């Protein structure tokens, strides 16, 4: 192995990439516009949840409840009839429908314990849970206040004060923006190395390379470092300019530490790209494989839903994916300001997974070159 070969071949890769307008446009797009628009589009916390209210009581209390729902958490509630309710929920127009029964206020004051019905479209899992809590609280507070004034009862003796750390407003955009950077890193590194390798084979330049005194190890390493470096630089810029600058996400921790993690992630994903390219016979097959790898990495690494919510077995399997560790690391470093003392297990895991993927890929790559 000669480090000089790895260096020069890598420089060649970068020069080649610089002349490929399509790929450059895609890199720029994935790290700027894609991240910006997705982050802006994802609602912040419970946002504009569609709610409708069937007010069969038409009392001062029931109108108090109706006016208690307002943006940004809820859409201004639509007052509908009981028959409309089913139709609207069927069509997916409303996620929540609150049914205030007739004589609710009278029964409440008379101590008859009336019942309000809250219908939730449980196919909308994301809003169903948090929305339920919000609505219960809002309705409860309104009724409490109303009945206290009516009866002069005592305030609740124990108050729960919630303090949200690291993201006081629970702004989903903060988290989403960083996770989109992670997705872009994964996607680009796999595509840049994998697709470029297939194209090189289809165009016969790989063969030419083999006539020279370079080993498959050198060829592969050069691809890994060069494409990794490009993606790393792009993600650093994106984090600083787009995420911190344009989107105004406060980054608490150390960006260099995050980038160290990203470099290790790239080591693993670029190897994965080469592996996929060496088992895919053609570009269409590579495209399908890409989808099949990218989607689980995105959905199950903890970037979209909490890892705790996945079945044990999925959590265990996903420990083998580099992204899982990187998502943990990114959260810890960027939001909680964690240092090396905290994230070293993730760094070790990334090194281990990267080394394993690299070794397996190198073996496949040698066979691929035959």
């Amino acid at each position, binding site marked *: 192995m000669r480090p000089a070969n790895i260096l*020069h071949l890598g420089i060649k890769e970068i*020069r*080649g990439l610089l*002349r*490929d307008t*399509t790929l450059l446009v*895609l890199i720029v*797009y994935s790290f700027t516009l894609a991240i910006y628009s997705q982050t*802006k*589009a*994802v*609602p912040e916390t*419970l*946002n*504009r949840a569609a709610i409708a209210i069937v007010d069969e009581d038409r009392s001062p209390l029931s109108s108090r409840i109706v006016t208690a729902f307002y943006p940004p958490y809820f859409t201004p509630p639509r007052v509908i009839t009981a028959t409309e309710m089913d*139709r609207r929920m*069927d*069509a997916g*127009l409303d*996620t929540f429908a609150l049914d205030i029964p007739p004589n609710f206020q009278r029964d409440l004051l008379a101590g008859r*314990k009336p019942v309000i019905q*809250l219908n939730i479209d*449980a*196919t909308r*899992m994301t809003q169903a*849970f*948090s929305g339920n*809590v919000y609505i219960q*609280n809002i309705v409860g507070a309104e009724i409490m206040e109303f009945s206290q004034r009516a009866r002069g009862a005592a305030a609740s*003796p*124990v*108050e*729960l004060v*919630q*303090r949200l*750390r690291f993201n006081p407003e629970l702004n*989903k955009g903060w*988290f989403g923006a960083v996770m989109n950077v992670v997705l872009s890193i994964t996607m680009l590194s796999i*595509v840049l190395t994998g*697709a470029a390798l297939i194209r090189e084979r289809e165009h016969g*330049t790989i063969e030419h390379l083999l*006539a020279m*005194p370079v080993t498959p190890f050198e060829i592969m390493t050069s691809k890994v470092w060069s494409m990794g470096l490009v993606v790393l630089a792009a993600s650093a810029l994106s984090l600083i300019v787009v995420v911190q600058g344009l989107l105004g996400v406060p980054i608490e921790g150390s960006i260099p530490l995050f980038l160290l993690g990203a470099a290790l992630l790239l080591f693993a994903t670029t190897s994965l790209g080469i592996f996929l390219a060496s088992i895919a016979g*053609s570009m*269409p097959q*590579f*495209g*399908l494989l890409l*989808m*099949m790898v*990218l989607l*689980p990495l*995105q959905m199950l690494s903890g970037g979209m839903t*909490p890892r705790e*919510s*996945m*079945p044990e077995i999925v959590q265990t399997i996903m420990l083998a994916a580099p992204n899982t560790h990187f998502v943990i690391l990114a*959260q810890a470093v960027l*939001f*909680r300001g964690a240092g090396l003392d905290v994230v070293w297990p993730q760094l070790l895991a990334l090194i281990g997974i990267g080394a394993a993927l690299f070794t397996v890929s190198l073996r496949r790559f040698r066979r691929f070159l035959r």
Partner: protein
Amino acid sequence: MNTVPAATAAPVVSLADVGLSYGKTRALERVTLDLPSGCMVGLIGPDGVGKSSLLSLVAGARMIQTGSVTVLGGDMADAAHRRAACPRIAYMPQGLGKNLYPTLSVFENVDFFARLFGQGRAERERRIAELLARTGLEPFAGRPAGKLSGGMKQKLGLCCALIHDPDLLILDEPTTGVDPLSRRQFWELIDTIRAGRPGMSVVVATAYMEEAARFDWLVAMDAGCVLATGAPADLLAQTGAATLDEAFIALLPEEKRKLHHAVVIAPRDAETHAEIAIEAEGLTMRFDDFVAVDRVSFRIQRGEIFGFLGSNGCGKSTTMKMLTGLLAASEGRARLFGAEVDPRDMRVRQRVGYMSQAFSLYSELTVAQNLDLHARLFQLPPENSPARVAEMAERFDLAAVMDALPDALPLGLRQRLSLAVALIHAPEILILDEPTSGVDPIARDGLWQILVDLSRRDGVTIFISTHFMNEAQRCDRISLMHAGRVLVSDTPAAIVAQRGSATLEDAFIGYLEEAIGEAGAPPQPSPAAPQPAAGAVAAPHEVRRLFDPRRMLSYTRREALELRRDPIRATLALVGSLLLMFVIGYGINFDVEKLSFAVLDHDRSLASSDYALGMAGSRYFVETAPIADYADLDRRMRRGELALAIEIPPGFGRDLARGRPVQVAAWIDGAMPQRAETVQGYVQGLHGAWLTQKMRLLLGEDAASASFRIETRYRYNPNIESLVAMVPAVIPLLLMMIPAMLAALSVVREKELGSIINLYVTPVTRFEFLLGKQLPYVALALVNALLLTLFAVFVFRVPFTGDLLAFATAAFVYVVAATAMGLLISSFMTSQIAAIFGTTILTLLPATQFSGMTDPVSSLQGVGALVGRIYPTAHFMTISRGTFSKGLGFGDLGGSFVPLLIAVPVLLGIATLLLKKQAR
């Protein structure tokens, strides 16, 4: 060449002031030219002089930039004339089997073209049988086109071109890369066909001057200009040359001509160079069950120029690779200077220079960068390397173009660069795989002079493969290969003498016939073959229709066949989507449990531990070691160990007992907002429950119980199972991504590999093309939809409560839209990489983020909300959830069907408009 053009006949093709540029490169320079009809016209000249460009303009495959092109009496700039003329024109593009489909059999390939020209079943079968019989391809009717030899591929290309009895046959270098015997057979075939259809005009581009000598009328071209026209004899007379090669050189402008020097070959001094440089002993290479090289043995002395002849795919390149250690031989031995070749030994490569068949240097690096990179890879000492690069630039006359990109250079120069790169490390052995194919005669002679000098002066051993007989003649010794075996190996003169034939070419053809004869030759095309009744009857051309289902279905059939021959792709699509459904269905769950929490208890009273127990006792939280102080709290939260920390103030128990207001603090890790929200909900719920219980204890049952109740009904999914919520949403996601990707690649692949040319030059319309290619993928996607639904119902046990017919109808419309989406993406993408990337971005993001999969469309904002309103996935998601979970049917979901139904024609319409019917 029996017919002589009637001088009076109108020209079949007439060009006036035709110019063409590719970016900055000028391909044709104001060409004005009339080609006589009813005869065999040859375009001669090396690669890159504009022959192919000119032919593609004539065929209507390329858009005219300037000037006018009149073919068969009409203007080719006029789309109506092109439509009317294209059934009368046949075009065989350059490159072996470029417009054929490698996985389709011989019969299926011809059949595809027959259907494209709208022929009925009986007519098709008759014509195909006749053509296959005449070209000798009949015994191979079932063999995939990709597995044919070069010569057979070209014959098949000819069959495809002749299927519709064209009046004008355009052949672009039909015999390049084909062995001499197949070449001869090919031209004999053309002669018999012309004999049967005397009115047919044939326009051929060729780089072989020997062939051109037999044509009726020639056009000599150079650098985008016409040098001269006329019968071969006229050209020879005009220039006073003995051969067309010489005549062509004489026709070149003065400044180019003066660069030419006849190649001088000094006799080799065999005595001083008796050392054996290359030795092969029973070299054999097997790929699976296919023997590419069969027991090849020879010895080459130092400084010898050793030629290798044979058709494409006969094993020349494989043999060369085994000699250089690029490939490990299955059997046998190769030695370089007496030492056995070890493919893993990098030192061998230091001694060998290799120049591969196609130009395979990096087109993205400049000439200087290419030389520099190779100098470094071959480990030239850094201090000598610039000098060596300069020396090579000087010797190969590259100094003026050092900063140019290789693609911008003429082929001759590019080959010189390749040679310079192969020689940068001063190798002792030079292996050249067809270095001169397509290079103009002057550059070719220049290249040969360099080779001769290397051999004679520097003692470099040269191993070269070529198709040109005059080059073979220059070698010290040559070997003829066929089907992996060496037929003969000797000096050119000895081979001619041995065979007793007039020329080297005749000698080779003799050897080839002998070899094939042993193996069971394809029947010679007999002149008495069924005579072209078709030509006489001249089938009335189909009434032109704007939409012909037959043409469309021809593409459908072909695409379906290709899909069937590539089972990996279909399997990946089907199995992959099931796998993904498992992943997403099981992976995403909104019901979070076992969150870690700890208590910072400043009070340490009975009441405080009771409060903490209320939290720890739930299934949502798992208690970890109590928190010591604020520093500990901070540290553990930063580590992400705690999702929740409960802080109970000092005096909690006392104040509680006295009824004084107390505050309990819940610290929640907000780094992942979704999880934090869930935690918030749980904490509030548990806190409320604890309060109620306390009140009950303090004040008695009645007073404590709440004054009202909120009854929550989780509709459609009463057990709030994630699977029930997710699976109906995953189906639309998968049915968008995979069909779109497949459809997009199917078109872009044709663009990248060249078979898109069939769209350009056959009567098929853009809409027929797209729709035809779309149908198999719609069918595949429907199978996919069925599988996913079955899995959802029977494996995931997601209840299907609504109208199955409504779901099925929507699924059908949706997959049509999804594939149309892929076609739309393909219409403006040119490379497969870009298509994969583009499709991923344009499907994955909108489908996962903006279509209501997790966040309802009604809660999106900005661009996301707009996309969510028009993107098909959003609407199918509503239908899928409605029919799966909500028990709905057509009536309730009508509003979601409308946008889907609109999406299909809109997407297909835009795709059709964006797709080009001609190359630009």
